[in-house]
C-alpha cells in the first residue's frame, strides 16, 4: 500500500527537489512504523482530492487557515491534523488546497525539525 501510495504521488507530482528525496528516505527508514494517520495521508491524491475526500480519509481537522488575500499568488487554504505518536511526541499532517479546491500539498510537520513533503503538485497561478 505504501509503495502504491508513493508510486501514485510520484506519478502526479511535479516536485523535483530535495523534499522528494527526503520522502523516499523517510519511507525507507520508517515504513515498518508508519502510523495510521500517515498511512491515511499517503492515500490523498494531490491534484484531484477535494476537501470532502480529505475529510473522509482523515476526519475533521484540528485547525484550518485561509490567508489568501487579494494579492496572494499561492492560494492559502490549509488543514492541519495533530497526531500523537504515543511516545510523548506529536507531529502534524498538513494538507494545503489550491484555488480549485484540490489538494496541492500533503506534508508531515514534526514538532521540531524539517517538514517532510508527502506529496505535492504545482499550484495554478492564482488570479482574480
Amino acid at each position, binding site marked *: 500500500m505504501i509503495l502504491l501510495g508513493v508510486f501514485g504521488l510520484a506519478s502526479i507530482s511535479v516536485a523535483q*527537489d530535495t523534499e522528494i528525496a527526503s520522502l523516499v528516505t523517510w519511507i525507507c527508514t520508517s515504513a515498518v512504523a508508519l502510523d495510521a494517520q500517515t498511512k491515511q495521508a499517503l492515500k490523498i491524491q494531490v491534484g484531484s482530492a477535494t476537501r470532502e475526500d480529505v475529510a473522509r480519509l482523515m476526519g475533521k481537522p484540528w485547525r484550518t487557515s485561509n490567508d489568501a488575500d*487579494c*494579492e496572494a499568488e499561492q492560494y*492559502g487554504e490549509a488543514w492541519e491534523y495533530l497526531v500523537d505518536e504515543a511516545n510523548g511526541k506529536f507531529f502534524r499532517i498538513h494538507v494545503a488546497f489550491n484555488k480549485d479546491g484540490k489538494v496541492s500539498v500533503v506534508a508531515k510537520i514534526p514538532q521540531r525539525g524539517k517538514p517532510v513533503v508527502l506529496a*505535492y503538485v504545482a499550484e495554478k497561478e492564482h488570479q482574480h
Partner: protein
Amino acid sequence: MSRKKNRLFRKALASVPIHLTITTISVCASVYALAQSYPPYGPDIPLAHFDHGNRPHLTPPPPKLMCPVLSPSCQDARTAQSEWNTQLLGYDTLDGRSAYQPLVVHQGNRYIAYMAHHAGCAISRLNLNNEVNGTSLLDVTNPQHPIYLAHIPNSPSDGATCTGSLDAAGNQMVHVCGGDSLPSNSRAEENRKRGHYYMLRTNGNASGQPGVESHEIWDTTNPSSPVLLKTIDSGATNTHKDWWECYSGVAYLVGNDGTASAGSPDSAPGWQQSGSTQHMKIYNLHDPANPEYIRDFGFVGQQPTATPPAIEGLVTPPTGIHGPISAGDRIYAAYGVGGNGAIQILDRSKVLNGCKASGASANCAKSPTQSEMLAPQLGWFTLPGTSLQGGHTSFPIFGEENGKRRNLILVTSEEGGNECTAGSAPHAAWLYDVTDEANPKYIAEDPNDPARTKMDVPNGFDYKWVGIIPGNGVTDNHCGTTNCSQSGIYGASVTPQDSPTNPNNFCNQGARFGVHSSTELFYPPYYGRLAITAWFTGGLRVFDIRNPDDPRAIAYFIPEPNDTGCGPKGGPSPGPGCTMANTGRDGHTVNAIHTNNVEVDDRGLIYIADRAGTGMHIIKLTGQAAGAGAGNDNDNDHDHDNDHGHDNDHDNDHDH
C-alpha cells in the same frame, strides 16, 4: 563610525546636561497624554522635524538560526528568535489563528488589543469550541501578561463553516472609536454613546465569493462580551482595509458591491478595477447604529461610466485600492497592493462634499462623472519599479526642515508570492516628498537596490542580495524620479534550498519575504523619526527616517516559530506546534514565521501579528532604536543595549 569612536561618542553623549534629559522626558510625557488627539482618533497632526544628520548606516546582525550549522543531525533551516535593538515583552498564541492586523486601543484605563484574523478555524481556549476565525480581544495593559478576553467568530452570513469552504471567511481588518470621540447630532445620541467603544470590522475575505461579505460594527464597551450593533453594506465583495476617523465619524470602507447588494440603498455596482477589485464606499458612522451613506470613490477610470483607455494609472482599468488614510484635509489612497501601484492625494473636503455641490450630476455619489472624479485629486504618482510594485500603505508624515514645511508619504508595496517567486520583484518601502502635491518627488533612492530604495531588506542573512536580475529602464512620467527603472526580479534559482553549505536566506522559509505594511497610528514620539514595517519572514523592520533623504535600518525583531503549542502561554493545548507551514518553490514546505502587520500603541509598544498562526508578539524598542524614537542620537536604554549592528560607514561620523 569605528567601535572606538562609537564608545567616545556615547561617552560624550552621556555628559549631555541633565536638564535636556528632563526636558525630553517632559515632552514625551505630554505627547503620551495627547496621543489620542491624533489620527485616527483625533484631528490634530503632529509635526515631524527632519534634519540632514549624517548618521552612520548599520548592517543588521544576521538572524539566529534553529540550526546554526545544518548537518544530518540538525536540519532545521528556519530562523530562530532574533533581536536587534528590540526586546520581546509579551506573547500570546491567539489560539493558533492566522492573524492579519493588530490594533491596540487605550480603552478607559485598559489597553485592549484587537487582533483581526484571516479565515480559518481553531479551538477557542474560552469555550473549547472549534470557531471560525474572527477577531480576538486581549487585555494587554500588562504587556508581559496578555489576558485573552474574547473571540468574536466570523459572522456566518458569508457562508463559512469549519467543515466547508472558507473562501469568504475571515475578519482581517479592524478599527475602534470611542463614543466620546465620535460627534453627535443630538443630546440623546451623545448620551447613548457616552462611555461606549465601537469596533468596525470587515466580515469576509478579499478572496471570497462575490456578494456575501459585509462590514460590521460591534459594541466592545465590555471587551469580554462584545455585542453586534449593525451590519453595513451586506452583499459586498472584496472587503479590505478600512479607515475610520473617530473625530468626524467618517469611515472609508474598502470593497465592491456584488450583485447580492444591488437591492440595498447604498449599493453602487459597476465600479471597475484591475487586480484587486475594490474601491471606497464612504459613510459617516458617527452614530454607529445608524450609518449614513456619503458616496463611492476611487481612482479616475474606475467609476462605472469610465471608458477605456484610462487617463491615469499604469493599467486600464486602474488597479483597485488597498486602503486609505486620512489626516487633516487630505486622504492618501494606495492602489495596486503588490503591482501596478499608484498613490493618490485627495482633498478630503472635496471628496466628502463634492456630490452635494451645486452642479453635481444626479448620480454623483454612486456613479460620478470623470470630472467629478478628478475634482478632489491633488496629485498622484507611481512607484519606483512601476508595474512590479504596488501601493499597499500610504502613510503621510507632515513635517518641517530648517523652518520650512516638508511633507512626506511613506509607501509600502506587498510581497505576494512565497519564497521569492521567480520573476517577482523584491517588495520594499519608499519615501516621497509631497510638499508640492502636484509634483511628488521620490527621495532616499538607492540605485543599487532592486527596488531603488534605501528602505529595503536584502534577502541574504548577510544582508546582501542573492539571485537578483537587474531591472530595466522604462518610460513613466509619474514615478517622481528621473529614473523609472523597473524593479529587479528574483531569478529561477535564487536559493539553494537547505544546502548544508549555505545557511540559506529569508527566501527559504516557505512563506513570503518582502514588505507588507507600515504602522498607521500617528504616535507622536515615533512620528517622522521611525518607519516601522512588517516584512513577512524578515519579521519586524524599523528604519530611522529623521534624515528622510538618507534613512537607515535601526532595529528588527524576528519571532521564534512556535513548536510548543497553541495554548495561552505557548504550551500544549491541545498539542505541540502552532506555526503553520507554507509552501514555496518546488514544493518546499516550512513552518516558519510570517510577520504580517505591525502597529504601535500610545505607550510606544509595538505589536506584530503572524500570518502563519504563531500569534501576537509585544515588542519594546531598545538601544539605538529607542534613542532614535525619542529623538536622541544616543542609546536610550543602556540596560537592554543589544546593539550588535555594524557601522558600515566608517568615514562618515555623526555631525552633531
